[in-house]
């Protein structure tokens, strides 16, 4: 009698759990032509939960043809479920002063379970030398 109740329940639970789980397989060229210029980064973590779920794999930079700093951050979702977060880039000049940017959005983003994705930003002016990115869980 008990089994009759538990079996359908277990089935429903399994469906519910598997419905939330996402994962991702990828394929890419093994012999890379491009060479990333990695940046040594400094991290401040106050939300360990988010840092654990959506981790920063690495940061690399490049210069645009117009002499603007371009930053790319590689993120990895260590979990098997979709994670929602927001990020915002801040830029600083050679004196460490924050550069005011009229269009500096808090960008809502999401990352599938097991996914590795990149977020990028271009400095608003050639005077920008440093950057900081804020991550917040949604």
């Amino acid at each position, binding site marked *: 009698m008990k089994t009759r109740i538990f079996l359908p329940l277990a089935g429903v639970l399994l469906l519910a759990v598997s419905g939330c789980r996402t994962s991702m397989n990828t394929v890419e060229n093994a012999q890379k032509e491009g060479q990333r210029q990695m940046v040594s980064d400094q991290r401040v973590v106050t939300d360990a939960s988010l840092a654990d779920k959506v981790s920063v794999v690495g940061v690399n930079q490049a210069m645009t043809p117009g002499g603007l700093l371009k930053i790319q951050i590689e993120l990895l979702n260590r979990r098997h479920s979709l994670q929602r977060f927001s990020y915002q880039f801040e830029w600083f000049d050679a004196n460490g002063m924050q550069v005011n940017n*009229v*269009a*500096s959005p808090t960008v809502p983003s999401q990352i599938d379970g097991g996914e590795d994705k990149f977020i990028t930003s271009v400095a*608003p002016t050639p005077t920008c030398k440093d950057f900081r990115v804020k991550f917040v869980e949604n």
Partner: protein
Amino acid sequence: MKKNVILSLLAAVLPLIVGGCGSQAHYIQTGGRESVVTVSGINIQDFIQAADAATSDLLASGKLDKVANPPAVLAISRIINNTGQQIDTDLLTKKIRVALLNSGKAQTTTTMGLGGTAEDPMAKGLQQEAEFKSDQKATRTPDFTLSGKIIETVARTGNTSQSTYSFQLSLTDTQTGLAVWEGEKEITKQGSRPTVGF
């Protein structure tokens, strides 16, 4: 006696609790995480995101650097609103203009506009007066024009509604008439409609 004391205390505390839960008017960061998000409309954070994406992409392309006499001069052409809402396209273009000006890569003319209408008629008048007095053409022809379109795509299934707003922009070289840069930013929002009411 004891009951009265407890009741009095509760009566004193209750308004504080209720008052604390009320939504009082307060300031929030424009475009920040506390901003209201609606599926059926373009919110301010959408304009900020679209402007930032377009500006970053345009600056990274380096097209503005390829002018003979930098910084490049830009004229704002037609931005078509193909959504069902009444929106001021300056919410998009002004942010792009300010960002480009701050970058030092481009300046926007305010004395030339669609159909000969100037954004700043006084500046245009003064410029024409100066040209007449000096008998020399002072107006610099824009190197580029910026045009675009905002499109809304709506989808619904059950109680879930979804809107995609496409912000399409083109930078055209005025010498050749060719689009030298084109950008598109799509923002999709999804939400459930209430089952009761509107």
